[in-house]
């Protein structure tokens, strides 16, 4: 038996899924998800045979963890509450007897419902194709590791970007700046910053599941999982706090 509060939360979740699956956004996400397939298919169908470390660096790190994952998450999660603000429809939710944390949970859940499977499938499929094409062993394990790690990374990014959509009137610009400057540059080149990088948590989980990937350049498994969980929870709480304190337009 579903209780009253859960029914209201479900209504917000269904509404959010409907908002997030507009035709334009779905096509954009699908297009982005297909991008990693291009090099993977090239490696499968041509004589170009990259090494395992090339695949780690180019496909998993540079393409999937550094670009496709955060950009898809950004495109979806910032709109979960950001569009409600922009369209001045957020009051439809906050003027209902639904606890703020339930609104955030529904928005976050809807974002994750869209982002996680798309990203995980895109990553796993492209890795499977690429490793097979390159004639490397362990392609199934690598694909599973990347799929799971990207799913975790997608959850963390979803939490971060749902908050950003509520916090800023320019979430896409700030998000892109964050992805390319913080995640792309600082976390790679500034000592210690890797502990504050979602990309690093993602690669750490890949390494935890498939020990032959990223053997000595990422943070440890425990740190990756624990910090990812902390960051996810922190931004979810910050979103609830913001929603409770802000003036709703």
């Amino acid at each position, binding site marked *: 038996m579903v209780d009253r509060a859960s029914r209201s939360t479900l209504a917000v979740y269904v*509404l959010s899924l*409907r908002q997030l699956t507009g035709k334009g956004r779905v096509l954009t996400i699908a297009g982005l998800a297909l991008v990693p397939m291009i090099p993977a298919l090239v490696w499968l169908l041509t004589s170009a045979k990259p090494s395992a470390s090339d695949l780690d660096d180019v496909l998993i790190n540079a393409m999937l963890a550094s670009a496709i994952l955060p950009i898809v998450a950004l495109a979806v999660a910032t709109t979960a509450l950001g569009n409600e603000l922009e369209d001045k429809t957020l009051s439809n939710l906050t003027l209902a007897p639904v606890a703020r944390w339930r609104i955030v949970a529904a928005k976050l859940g809807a974002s994750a419902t869209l982002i996680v499977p798309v990203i995980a499938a895109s990553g796993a499929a492209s890795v499977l194709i690429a490793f097979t094409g390159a004639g490397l062993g362990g392609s199934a394990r690598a694909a599973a590791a990347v799929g799971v790690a990207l799913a975790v990374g997608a959850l963390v990014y979803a939490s971060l970007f749902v908050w950003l959509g509520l916090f800023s009137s320019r979430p896409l610009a700030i998000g892109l700046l964050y992805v390319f400057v913080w995640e792309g540059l600082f976390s790679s080149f500034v000592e210690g910053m890797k502990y504050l990088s979602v990309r690093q948590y993602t690669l750490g989980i890949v390494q935890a599941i498939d020990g032959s990937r990223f053997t000595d350049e990422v943070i440890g498994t425990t740190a990756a999982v624990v910090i990812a969980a902390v960051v996810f929870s922190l931004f979810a709480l910050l979103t609830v706090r913001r929603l409770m*304190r802000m003036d709703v337009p």
Partner: protein
Amino acid sequence: MKSSAVIALSSVSKWYGNVVAVSDVSFEIQPGITGLLGPNGAGKTTILRMMSGLAAASEGQVTVFGQNPRTTPELYRRIGVMSEHETGYEFMTGRQFVRMAAQLRDVESPHQAAVVAIELVDLLDAADRRIRSYSRGMKQRIRLAAMLVHDPDLLILDEPLNGADPRQRLQFQSLLRSLADAGRTIVVSSHILEEIEMLATRVLLIVNGKLAAEGDYHAIRAALDDRPYHVRVICDAPRALAAALVGLDAVDSVQVDPDGAVVVLSSNMGALQTSMARVAKDRSVRLTRVEPLDDTLESVFEYLVA
């Protein structure tokens, strides 16, 4: 201390940066229809937003049914709010929008409740069209249906008649009156006096973010009419004019400012205008400027009456 009023504002102020939107406003609202009247930018919407919990007061306390709406989401089972924005979820049909409002408020049989609410605003024929295809008036009505779908005890409506045609206005008045007769508390804002006069039994007059007057509409108007006004007169012989004005019935007091302006206090503006012109002509005094000093309330009211 908790108030027994449905809505109570106690020394409430709201500011945005350096801009004061509402300043030290206190009042209580009981069941029946209360009109929030004032010109555009007076602070009506800000007050309604604080009442409905959408905005926090910078200072003071707002309670609805004795509780803070900002921290008590459960209150919204008893409150219906129709905000100033026309926008809804335009990708939905009217029926879907109202049904979702019912689901969010955990109404039993949301589908049936939506039908009843849509019928109430006479929009059943267009219920299955997308909201984006609705006219402005239809959007207002579907939002009204969404507000009524859970049969709230308190209704807060910001400029609800925007976009409504005369027939819809009459329907709307009739609907609100029947809800008020059934014991609901209704707060309606407008910058148009006729709207408030037709709907509300009690008026709160908001001017420049302050509560300028409250009570029965006719009592407010009488109070404004009886109120003495200061008038500043610039002329070529201020002392002669002041001496001549002192003896007039329409004049309560006269003083000559250091800058040479004559300041007259009068409770009868009509008589003052006539007699001042006559006195000036008799004394051969040339008037170059006559201006009310404390015209804020008057000008607002004149604006509202116009």
